[in-house]
Each structure stands twice: as structure tokens, then as C-alpha cells.
């Protein structure tokens, strides 16, 4: 039986992260939550994560800082990171740190499609 892919959701906004967790679980993923980048790094150190779905603005450690830390870490350098932002249009210099950028609000289909694109290589190796 193939192992489920593991997703880490990092978002400080109450409600959204829980909603995404339920939706992704129903789509067959294993999901963990963190409310800031620092807690996300702790979870990354503890076990396998196949994809990180992170908010940009968060307390303690934001999405860009989290992505920088992951890109500087040999273990997580290749882990796909999708950034979720509430900002309507602006592009940030930090966008290059992410494999994809999703603007809130996004549809479940767009999320799953984007995740599938980022996870394509990993799914093949499963």
C-alpha cells in the first residue's frame, strides 16, 4: 500500500488552515499544521514532509524566512513550497523562493492542480 504524501500547512489565520487540512485529508493527503514558520521548521526536522503550503505574513517567522531556511538546508532544499498570499496583485522579490504562488481566495481545484504540478516528480517515485 503506497504511503500517503505528507503536506505541511503553515498559516496564522484562524479557520483557513483547518479548512484546508480537512479538504486535503479528503483528497488523500496526510496533513500537519503550523501557525508560523518557526513551528513549521520544528515539524520539518521531526519527519518527512513532501510539500509545504505556507502563508506569507505570519508572526515570529514569515513565509519568506521559512523558505530561505529550507533552501539553505540540504534535507529540505528540494521540498516544493507553495506560497499562499492575500495580496491581490503585488509580486514580491521573494517569489523566486517558492515553486508556485496562490492568491487567496483560490478554488480547491486550483490548489489541488497546483499541488499536483509541484508533486509530480515525488508521486512518480512513490
Amino acid at each position: 500500500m503506497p504511503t500517503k504524501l505528507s503536506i505541511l500547512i503553515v498559516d496564522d489565520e484562524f479557520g483557513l488552515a483547518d479548512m484546508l487540512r480537512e479538504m486535503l485529508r479528503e483528497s488523500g493527503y496526510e496533513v500537519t499544521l503550523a501557525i508560523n514558520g518557526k513551528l513549521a521548521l520544528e515539524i520539518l526536522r521531526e519527519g518527512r514532509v513532501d510539500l509545504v503550503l505556507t502563508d506569507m505574513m505570519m508572526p515570529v517567522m514569515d513565509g519568506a524566512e521559512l523558505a530561505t531556511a529550507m533552501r539553505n538546508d540540504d534535507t529540505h532544499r528540494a521540498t516544493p513550497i507553495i506560497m499562499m498570499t492575500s495580496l491581490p496583485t503585488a509580486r514580491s522579490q521573494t517569489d523566486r523562493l517558492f515553486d508556485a504562488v496562490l492568491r487567496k481566495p483560490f478554488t480547491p481545484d486550483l490548489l489541488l492542480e497546483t499541488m499536483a504540478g509541484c508533486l509530480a516528480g515525488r508521486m512518480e517515485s512513490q
Partner: protein
Amino acid sequence: MREQGPSFERRATGIEGLDRILDGGFLVSGVYIVQGPPGAGKTILANQTCFNHAAAGGRALYVTLLAESHSRMFAHLKRMAFFDESAIPDRVYYIGGYSALEAGGLEALVTLIRGAIQKHRATLLVVDGLISAQESSPTDREFKKFLHEIQTLGDLTGCTVLLLTNSQRAAEFFPEHTMVDGVLHLTDELSELRPLRHIRVLKLRGSAPVRGLHSMRITDQGLEVRPRIETRLSPGGVNEQPVAAGLKLPFGLADFDEMLRGGVRPGSVTMLLGSSGSGKTLLGMQFLSEGVRRGERVVYFGFYEQPEAILAKCQRVGIGGLKEGVERGIAQVVWHRPVEGVIDELGESLIETIRNTRPQRLFLDGIEGFERAADFPQRMSHVYSAIAQELERLGITTLYSTETRELFARTIEVPINGLSAATQNIVLLRHIEHRAAMLRVLAILKVRDDDYDARMRELRITNDGIRLLDTFAGESGVAAGGGGAVSDPHAKVPEAYPRAD
């Protein structure tokens, strides 16, 4: 040794009218509650203050508790002029605080806020959804402790703090109000069918706020606050000092100027009182037209006819020069739709126009336009007084028209308000039935401290302008609409003029 004490340095909100009400803005390190029902404008006020603060070089931190999601908030804010996405995240930073509150209570929330203020070097903090923090607090004392810690944080970091919370009534004064430096109360209520927003300062430490209700509007510019117009001007009633002596300002109508012994005095206020269609607007425009002809600056401020329409109408009846005056920059035509206006917006527009233009002549066409825009009718007398005071201070010779309700009433009611108290001259215009014809008539009812011709004249509007005729020579009771010959039963039938459309 340098002594340290409470700082009374201020931090402007950048919302002009609000800063005026707040005596210049919020205190640096001050903690303020902004309360009001949902939809009253709290979030817009706070965000606008954040972006204005960022534009002025500051840094703002916006913490949401159980409030709307950030994406939903941005979707609403992005249509407003103040919203500058490029300021996010470097100068305006948004975080959610509810997860921390749920996980670790108020202590965790304070820790989160403290860390974020330090990390982002914030000088303005907004906590949106204070009610959630209050509800999470096991006791009132714990909540007060939380507020105390926020206050201490503000003191240590030089951060101004806005706490947004729902409250339906200004009368609700909560214990936490004693802990903060100020309380602003926002409302959004219906006045008959009109939605009206107001803001009121319930408390403001170390400042002299403009107290009472002030009107607010939310437009694509953001929140616009207009202090009550009467508070913008110096206190006191209308000054009844005699108007300036010197050369009179004529209307450019030889007959009428003769009745006025040369015109109206500079700086005087003249009421044109009359029924609808009696010629008030055209007489007022004639006054402005003569001003333009003499190279004076003139302003028309009206509610009922749009600028193009009124200029075209003047051209049609031979009152020329105004359009050219507008093109030359010495005439200004200001029009406001009366119904949906806010009286303070109209008042401010008038005051700003006359302060910027400094006209020699002003015609306020349809003073009732102010009344139609009034949120509270009992304010009108104060509003008119304030306007009259400003006109007098600037020495502007003013005509204003006001409408009598009845076309043919036997009695004439002169409206008594703050403006009529300052009125030196009254000219009556009305329709009468005379020998099976409807005629317009004009009479001077009052000229303060001056001689005038009290005769009643027929007023005709022709393609060549306004004409005054001696139609009623020797008749009485004309003003009441029941004119009858008393001395000359064979009064001369007036010379015919081509009537204007």
C-alpha cells in the same frame, strides 16, 4: 539629568477631518478603542491610518483576531485610493492572532504582539476584534491586565495602539474605557431613507477634541470625516455690525439699482425671497454677471441646476458674460446635488470655495439645499450662523435665494434662521394674478440703514435680460396677490416685451 514624563507628541491619522477632531491626531504611545457596530467603518479607519502612517515613514502592524480574513479585507480595501499594496509587507504587516489566543490565551497573544512589534519595528499597532480577546478572558481583571500590558508595550516601543471592537451604543461605557487614552464611537444609521455615518469622541486624554457628532462618508478615497461645520468657525453668534461703507455693488439693472439707491453695500447679505419660478435665480445671476463685467471675482453656489444648464439659461435670456467669466477664471459655478449630500460636506465646500476664491460677490441659490442635506434639522440655525459669520469675516457681498412655499399666499413668511439674522436686505419676488394674467413682481422689503424705493414693480424676463415695469402704479394689495386699482382704474397696460422661453 533628563526628566521623563508623558509624551504629548501626536501621530496624525492622515484623515484630515479626523485629525481636526482629535486635536491633531493620536498620542504617540497612546492606546485607543475604536468601537461601533459591524459595517460602521472601523476597519477602514484603522487601515487608512496604517497606510497613511506608512506613507509618512512609519511602520504599522495589523493583528486580526476573529475578524474578516485578510484576503477578504484586501479585496474590499483595494478599491480605495489609500491602499498601497507596495507598502505590504515592509511597512504595513498583517498577522492573525486568534490561533495564538486560542492556544495560549491573552498571555500568548501579548507575547505574539510584542514579538511582532519588535520584529517589524512597528510604530502603529491595530488589534482588530478586541471582543475576542475580551471573551477569551476568564475575568474582567485578566482583561484589564491584558490592556495594561498593551499599554506598557506602547510606552516601551513608542507604538500607538488602536483596538477595534463592536459596540452598538455610545452609551455603553465599559470598564476598559478607563484604561485607555481615548474612545472613538462610530455609527451607521438611517435618517428616514438616508444612511448616515457619524463619529464621536467619547474620551480623549491630553487633548482638546471637537466633541459631539461629526459626519463620515466612505468613498473610493476611503473614510472622509467632516467635523460639524459650525465647530470649524469661531464661536459666537452673528455679528450685527453695520456693513462696510463705500461704493455700492450694482446689479447692472438701471431701474433696480435706482430702487436700491445704487446697489447693495459691500459685505452685505441680501435675501431674495420668492415662490418657485419668480425670477430669483436669474436676478442673482444678473448680480454675478454685473460683477464679471466689472472684473470682480464671483461665485455661484447652487443645488438645483447644473453649471452647464444655468450658464446656458443665462445666455438664453441675455444675462451674458458668466460663461466668459468662468473661462477667464474669475467666475466659479459650484453645484451640489442636495438630496444625498451631507450638510457638513456642503458647508465645507462652500467655506473652502470662498476662502480659496475670495469672491467679491457670492450667490447662494436655494439655501434650502442645506436643509435637505441636514442630518438633524435642529442644527440648521447654527449652520447658517456659521456660514453668515464666515461671509461677514471675509467681507463677501452675498445674495441668497429662499423659496416661499405658497405661490399665491396672502401672507409671506420670512424664514428666521441664523442667516436671516445676518440679512441686511430683503427683496421679495412672487407671482400675482393681475387682470387675468400671471405676472412676476418684485419689491424691496428691507434695506438696513439706507433709503430705498418701496414700489412694487413687475419683473419681466425677456430675451434681452430682466426688465422692471411700473405695472402697478396706484394699486394696493398686490403683494398679497389681490391687486386692485385704488387711484387709477385705467392703469396703463404695460408695454409688451417678447417673453423668454
